């Protein structure tokens, strides 16, 4: 479903600030795979996600989604294949517009936007049904401005908008990091439900090791632009946070340099 073929990306090449963000990254996900990515700050997690999304164009290598080479496609064209939830709950929705208008815009991901009426009665009914699955009462607030929702509600809506049109790939960029713990749990549960319901191939970056182990069927640990450790269906079962930290130290000969990762283990 998703192939990353020998991807290289260097920021600020030939300057003192030169930094290799991705080094010969070669990975593949099959349909329905859910991979969590952990790693220290600057390990290349976000670069990887942005390379898939098209906000960063790799220096070398290709990105293939469902057998389409999308490496040269612009971010917005590529978005036809990709659903995305950002870390900032404000990033994924338009605050000045209503819930139903926001959902209508997300529908346009897969088709051309017409000069016909946007939110029709039929659509409204559909939106209501989808919103009801979140079980946080948004289905009764279709005409509420999204800017008036709480961070958790906004993130839940972003998540629904990114998933209900069934993208080929779902990208989650530390999408629970900016929420308080109770909301974090809610969003994580909703993510699990939605990913399962739509059988979405998912890439989730997280800074919480426990979350990374509990969620999905695969796990990549990244450092210095490479995947240095992976776990799949079988090996992920028995993985613990201690194992991950030991692995990291064994491979890298240093402690994981991520305050947040340590704090939240």
């Amino acid at each position: 479903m998703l192939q990353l073929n020998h991807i290289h990306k260097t920021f600020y090449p030939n300057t003192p600030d030169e930094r290799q963000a991705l080094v010969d990254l070669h990975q593949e996900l099959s349909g329905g795979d859910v991979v969590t990515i952990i790693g220290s700050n600057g390990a290349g997690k976000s670069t990887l996600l942005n390379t898939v999304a098209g906000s960063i164009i790799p220096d070398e290598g290709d990105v293939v989604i469902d057998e389409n080479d999308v490496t040269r496609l612009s971010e917005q064209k590529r978005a036809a294949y990709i659903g995305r939830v950002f870390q900032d709950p404000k990033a994924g929705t338009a605050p000045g517009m209503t819930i139903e208008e926001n959902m209508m815009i997300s529908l346009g991901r897969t088709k051309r936007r017409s000069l016909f009426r946007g939110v029709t009665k039929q659509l409204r009914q559909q939106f209501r049904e989808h919103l009801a699955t979140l079980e946080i009462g948004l289905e009764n607030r279709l005409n509420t401005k999204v800017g008036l929702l709480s961070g958790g509600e906004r993130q839940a809506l972003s998540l629904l908008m990114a998933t209900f049109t069934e993208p080929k790939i779902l990208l989650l960029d530390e999408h629970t990091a900016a929420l308080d713990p109770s909301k974090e749990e809610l969003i994580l549960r909703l993510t699990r439900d939605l990913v399962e319901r739509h059988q979405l191939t998912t890439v989730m970056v997280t800074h919480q090791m426990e979350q990374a182990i509990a969620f999905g069927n695969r796990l990549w640990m990244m450092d210095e632009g490479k995947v240095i450790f992976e776990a799949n269906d079988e090996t992920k079962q028995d993985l613990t946070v201690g194992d991950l930290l030991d692995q990291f130290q064994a491979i890298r000969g240093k402690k994981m340099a991520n305050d947040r990762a340590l704090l939240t283990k």
Partner: protein
Amino acid sequence: MLQALYGAVESGLIYSLMALGVYISFRLLDFPDLTVDGSFVTGGAVTSVMVVSGVDPFTATLAGAAVGFIVGCITGILHTKGHINPLLAGILMMVALYSINLRIMGRPNIPLLNETTVFTMVENWWQTLNLQGIVMAPFEALGIAAYVPNSLDVLVAATILMIIVKKLLDFFLRTEAGTTLRATGDNQTMVRSFSANTNVYIVVGMGVSNMLVAFSGSMVVQHNGFADVNLGVGMIIIGLASVIIGEVLFSFGSDKIVRTTLAVILGAIVYRMIYAVALQVDFLEASDMKLITALIVVAALVVPNWLGQTSAKQQYKKSKANAAKQEARQGAAEGERSHATAQSHS
């Protein structure tokens, strides 16, 4: 005075087209577009030149609006493809259009007094169909005919035009494309992440905005009976003042599209009324109006902020006073306690 106010409503309706254009760029696209000062005149220039050379005034008006659309698209392209800051892109277009407008007109001023314009045509229809009598009948029945102006033709025609434009705009802004256009001004990252080309929406949105502005310019020129290359000076501020007045007075806290477009239209009319009243005041001259307009906009931008700040300051003071009181109480209680322990020790 009464006649002046009727006149104000008339021109308010015509200028409200421009205000709607400014509303699209400023409010919906979050693009402070100074092209307006130029494109308003461009619409008028194209129309007046065509009318003078004998083209049907309706065609000439549409042509003026169409040129406005192109001009707006160019501003949009300067910003999206040329990565020029929105304000600067607008200023560049405004300056460039001054020369272009002079080229179109060939001279700084074109009189239209003896030409056939959309308004003279409306007047003719009005007379041949004897609509005045029909429209006046209810007023006469009520005995208030004396308070109604002698010619309602322009007022009625402008109202009908405005209703049509408003309906079309409301419809467009609620279509799939229109909704996405509004979202572009709200959160571009999000719109792009749902596979919409925000550049296209900005360019088309600026086109529609300046099309309305040029349409308004073309109507104003025909209404005034002359085109002048300086007609557009300060137009953007007039548009902004109309939008702000409308939002403050008529939106009643709702920001639904249908309500807001109505508010903007009414705002343009109220602006013209203020203008008419100001002209009646002896010590004010027509040329002072730009200053008054600027003051209205400054007040509308500053006063809400200022009110918010004072209330925040008051709250801060209050909470500080409360804290001080509490501290004093605690301090007193502690003082007593220490006093008591000191006593018991002795």
